[in-house]
């Protein structure tokens, strides 16, 4: 519950902090409606559309409505996929408005004790600390390898959790050992002639739970003629914080990352997670009011590139022979990779270049899968409805391989496959893993 006093503070903060120009920029034309997954899934509720949400934010600023529970619900149910941005004639930066609004609500609202504890652990205690991320992933590894997983499953412990979490437990990848996670390289030379020098943004989840995918990423970069620097001082990108109303936390992480990458003399900074990449290219907006950091943030942002994009630009698919046994492959866009980093054709072109396979576009591949950070846990019901639609489209392609470009999407698609009992017929993989698999040695 939000108290009346909290509502008043939130309303005042909306007046002070929300960007009025940006709010007015929305001309309410409704062109965003068909692109919004929650508008569609909610049965066409305007309160669950981008236009509606912007109108609600503006109405709070104008004092027409109070920021009550319904208002919060409308904002909470937004995936933040930003599919509304590319279709907006006025170019409204919806993502920025949403982040600001969520930050205001979160900073001025007293959460219940359990929620507060979870948030504190996740945002302050876990993600900003690579060593702790390793420890937690290590624990998961212990759980998986020690037989505890079998015991827990047999005892029905997972039944105590919400359905999506319980299924999630089944689809988590086999995690690497502590030793594998700790012994990470800081420099990797190219194979053959060096054409580019790049830095690799490893990401917290990618460098623990999806370590193999990070290794594959570096391997592909090597093959593409890149020498790779992996600065040790890098941290979590801060997206999780930013999207959940913990803006200050994300600013600190941004500064740490800018510092870690700025003197490396590299052409690009490579990411393999659309969600991280999109947040990294937004650092200039995040730090726009900080004179000491804003220019450095612009330099940083200008170097960010997704792995698919750099491979495509380096003609990797033309220089390296790619081949796989016959299978139908389909691609699910990472919303942030597509809508924010504007990388949509590169991954498709790379996949099409694989000999022996059939690439089939699924209907609405550009619509969110419902993962959206921790959305699939906190807004489970809506997320699962969105996932059901996604699985319908996936199945219609008869694909046996679903390719994604972001860890959240990857887990969500694995979850979808598990929920449909298709684990023996269909797999979900990160694009770099399937590309490395296709490299003819």
């Amino acid at each position, binding site marked *: 519950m939000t108290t009346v006093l909290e509502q008043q503070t939130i309303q005042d903060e909306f007046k002070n902090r929300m960007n009025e*120009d940006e709010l*007015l*920029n929305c*001309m*309410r*034309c*409704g*062109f965003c*409606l*068909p692109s919004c997954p929650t508008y569609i899934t909610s*049965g*066409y*509720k*305007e*309160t669950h*559309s981008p236009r*509606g949400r912007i*109108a*609600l934010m503006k*109405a709070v600023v104008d004092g*027409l*409505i*109070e920021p*009550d529970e*319904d*208002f919060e619900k*409308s904002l909470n149910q937004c995936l933040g996929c930003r599919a509304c941005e590319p279709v907006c*004639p*006025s*170019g409204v930066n919806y993502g920025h408005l949403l982040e600001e609004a969520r930050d205001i609500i979160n900073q001025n609202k007293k959460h219940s004790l359990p929620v507060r504890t979870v948030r504190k652990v996740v945002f302050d205690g876990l993600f900003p600390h690579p060593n702790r991320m390793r420890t937690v992933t290590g624990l998961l590894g212990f759980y998986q390898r020690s037989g505890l997983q079998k015991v827990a499953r047999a005892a029905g412990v997972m039944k105590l959790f919400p359905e999506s979490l319980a299924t999630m437990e089944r689809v988590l990848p086999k995690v690497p050992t502590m030793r594998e996670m700790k012994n990470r390289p800081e420099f990797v030379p190219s194979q053959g002639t060096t054409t580019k020098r790049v830095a690799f943004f490893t990401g917290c989840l990618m460098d623990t739970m999806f370590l193999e995918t990070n290794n594959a990423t570096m391997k592909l970069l090597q093959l593409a003629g890149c020498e790779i620097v992996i600065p040790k001082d890098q941290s979590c990108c801060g997206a999780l914080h930013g999207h959940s109303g913990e803006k200050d936390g994300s600013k600190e992480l941004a500064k740490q990352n800018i510092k870690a990458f700025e003197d490396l003399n590299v052409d690009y900074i490579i990411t393999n997670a659309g969600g991280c990449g999109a947040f990294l290219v937004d650092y200039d907006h995040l730090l726009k009011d900080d004179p000491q950091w804003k220019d450095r943030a612009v330099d940083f942002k200008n170097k960010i590139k997704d792995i698919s994009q750099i491979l495509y630009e380096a003609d990797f698919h033309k220089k390296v022979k790619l081949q796989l046994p016959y299978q139908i492959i389909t691609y699910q866009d990472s919303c942030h990779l597509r809508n924010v980093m504007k990388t949509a054709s590169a991954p498709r072109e790379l996949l099409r270049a694989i000999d022996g396979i059939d690439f089939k576009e699924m209907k609405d591949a550009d619509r969110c899968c419902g993962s959206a950070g921790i959305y699939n846990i906190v807004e489970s019901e809506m997320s699962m409805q969105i996932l059901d639609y996604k699985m319908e489209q996936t199945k219609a392609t008869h694909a046996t391989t679903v390719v994604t470009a972001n860890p959240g999407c990857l887990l969500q698609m694995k979850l979808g496959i598990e929920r449909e009992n298709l684990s023996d017929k269909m797999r979900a993989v990160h694009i770099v893993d399937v590309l490395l698999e296709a490299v003819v040695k």
Partner: protein
Amino acid sequence: MLKEEIRKKLIAVVGEENFDDSKVGRLAYSFDATPNFQAMPDGVVSPRNTEEVSSLIKICNEYKIPVVPRGTGTNLCGGTCPTEGGIVFLFKHMNKILEIDEENLTATVQPGAITLDLINAVEAKGLFYPPDPGSMKSSTLGGNINENSGGLRGLKYGVTRDYVIALEIVLPNGDIMRSGGKLAKDVAGYDFTRLFVGSEGTLGIITEATLKLVPKPETKKTMLALYQDLEAAARSVSKIIASKIIPTTLEFLDQATITVVEDYVKIGLPTDAKAVLLIEQDGSPEVVQKDIEKMTDICKSENAVSVQVAQSDEEAEQLTTARRWALSALARLKPTTILEDATVPRSEIANMVKAINEIAKKYDLNICTFGHAGDGNLHPTVPTDARNKEEMERVEKAFEEIFIKAVELGGTITGEHGVGIMKAPYLELKLGKEGIAAMKAVKAALDPNNIMNPGKIFAKDSRKRVVVGK
């Protein structure tokens, strides 16, 4: 606030889940795509079928509560803004394409069906539904019918009106009536189908429509012509029509629009060009080829500085870039974008554009004009800022002059956006006192309690107001 008694009655019809009078729920339907209009409804209902619409409207009629039918609220005349409160009717449940009849070439739809979904569905069967309003990706057919929407293909194919052949209507007293049929010929009584098309929700609620379809054209070709002289572009338009070619699309962009578009998309448009014509023709390949050649000759003979004909779909896409980005480029200039649709006989296009430019100068405004040159339907657009009251006053006055000029030239105050509340004060310019009186008589006969979308079409007072105020 709704009385508890009325609230209960409405809920009894549609169920709790289809009734909303929360503040947030009402706020979300307090506006449409028209700048500067906002008013809270008292409640929002989502009926599931015609019978529910009838029951709901009876309750509203009994208590004399305003009824505002709404599709997706993409109109530009304030048509769905509940300026007098009341109940907003949504058609999100009644959104099916009921039938595509390939023998009679018709489609029967519910009002909430999305325009583009219908277009795609019929094209998959080799058929064609031509009306293509700019908002077709999100607009509903019910909304299109009520506003009599136009689009880019209006010159050759006409507008929504030309494709509606039968309606199911719920009248304000709750009666359910049907007009028209799957018929090319039908003269049984007054043509209520035509009366309801473009009635802006002021006469009753359309709950089902049968639309006429045509065979899908075999091919389409696109060309683009640039001019250093506005008159030359206008003469090209007239000459094309005079030589008995009716292109599908004949779009026009003026210099101000070209400059704004080029600034934004940087596709190498010459910003010193005074006018651009985008022309498309569809039909059988031979006819299309012949027409495009003929039109190329005409444009050249009228001193077009460049004429490009697309050789592939990709090239066609490129040529249409400028026109497609016009609205976006304009919308990004300033927070508020006011887009009007004054329309003149096509022979008066050059005169109208010149008049608009003079009016812009007089009121010191940046008015960019683009639009459908082929059917005389122009979109003078002002990028402005609703917070700047002084400038908004000037915008107001400029548009008033534009409307007066359009009517003087034998045109109209609105070609495709509708009157709504935005242009109600100007309707008399077009219709005269007598015309308004006759229309009011029709309205009073069908809706004696004035519950249907009150305040729209007919101005309450003679105070002229286009864009200022709430």
